[in-house]
């Protein structure tokens, strides 16, 4: 189990997030960024398109991240990282170029440059920090907002469903695609370290519950991230060279009876406060469909 393999106390103590940064209390993006630094150390160079993380970086004259960070326009995260990775390699600099982009910057506005870099096989790690809406500009819906969730552009609940971005990236036949959660740092850190050893395009989709946009108490960020996984609403898995594998604790949740009821996850979040019974059913159906697709893939591989 990944959890066992990683000794928390041996992780680097260096500050990869500088105290006194601009993020809201309880911010998941800063939790995840700390784990990024712990995983890759000083070899990581980040490329950050528009979003909350860009603001944390961009309060000139100081920046809030403890890693080099290049700020770039919304649509160009993966394109910029492609050029940066090539330039560093040509100069003989040993570095891991990491795109650190929000769900809007990944699944909507940055999708074409992400697809291009994946198809070209650029040697970068792309992390989508998914807080399920455009938080920095005031909680607008993105294509990664789950069904039924309130946002400032979906007052009656999001009519759409969450776009399957990890599968869309995996369909580019890249060597590594994984999901992760800020609630499971040892899993995210192990996946980043694995990605760093692979040459080519690597994609990690990090689930990042946001207290401001999801309307929950700032102290609950970690708990809600774990509940997403324990209820099966978010699934931890990885595709290595196209082969799918469920990771703990999701590997024990293929059987729906092992999952906590979805209500335990959504009742703590104000964005679902007014969800209708019909919408809740659609949300549950979306989640079931994700699991069904995983089951089908595992079966096709002969793993079930």
């Amino acid at each position, binding site marked *: 189990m990944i959890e066992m393999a990683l000794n*928390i*106390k041996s*992780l680097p*103590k260096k*500050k*990869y*997030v*500088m*105290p*006194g*940064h*601009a*993020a809201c*209390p*309880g*911010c*998941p993006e*800063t*939790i995840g960024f*700390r784990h990024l630094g712990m995983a890759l150390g000083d070899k990581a160079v980040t490329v950050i398109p528009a979003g909350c993380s860009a603001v*944390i970086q*961009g*309060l*000139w*004259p*100081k*920046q*809030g*991240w*403890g*890693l080099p960070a290049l700020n770039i326009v919304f649509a160009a995260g993966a394109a910029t990282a492609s050029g940066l990775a090539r330039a560093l390699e040509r100069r003989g600099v040993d570095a891991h170029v990491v795109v650190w982009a929000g769900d809007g910057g990944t699944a909507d506005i940055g999708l074409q440059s992400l697809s291009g870099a994946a198809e070209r096989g650029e040697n970068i790690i792309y992390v989508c920090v998914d807080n399920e809406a455009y938080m920095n500009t005031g909680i607008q819906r993105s294509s990664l907002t789950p069904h039924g969730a309130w946002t400032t552009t979906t007052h009656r609940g999001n009519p759409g469903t969450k776009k399957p971005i990890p599968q869309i990236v995996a369909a580019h036949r890249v060597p590594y695609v994984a999901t992760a959660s800020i609630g499971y*740092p040892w899993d995210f850190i192990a996946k980043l370290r694995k990605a760093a050893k692979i040459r080519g395009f690597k994609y990690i989709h990090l689930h990042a519950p946001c*207290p401001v946009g999801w309307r929950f*108490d*700032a*102290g*609950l*960020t*970690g*708990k809600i991230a774990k509940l997403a996984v324990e209820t099966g609403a978010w699934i931890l898995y990885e595709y290595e060279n196209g082969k799918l594998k469920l990771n703990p604790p999701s590997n024990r949740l293929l059987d729906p009876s092992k999952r906590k009821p979805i209500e335990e996850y959504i009742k703590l979040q104000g964005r679902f406060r007014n969800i209708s019974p019909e919408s809740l059913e659609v949300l549950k159906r979306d989640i079931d469909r994700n699991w069904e697709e995983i089951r089908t893939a595992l079966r096709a591989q002969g793993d079930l």
Partner: protein
Amino acid sequence: MSSSTTERKLVVDRRGHFLPLSPSEVGSAGKTGSWRTERPVLSPEKCTSCYLCWLYCPDDVITMEPRGPEGNEIPVIDYEYCKGCGICVDVCPVNALSMISEEEPIEIQR
């Protein structure tokens, strides 16, 4: 803007052009400890030195130091920057941390 901002040396390239660079430094948004309405406080005798509070703190204001009752490592919180989110309290498996109101007198917390 503080005086340290105006005194800061700007980064320029070989031709003397100003470069929009900012170094990683503590306090890019000021002394964020002033944002708190509640503060996390530790009961050192309960702490099992598991590091989970350190691992999850979004503001990186926890340092593990060998200051526990048995010389064990306990979290030491930098209240100058701790935003009082309460995540450390929530993730602590043994309830060694609790939130108390900022209106409580400081002496009680020692």
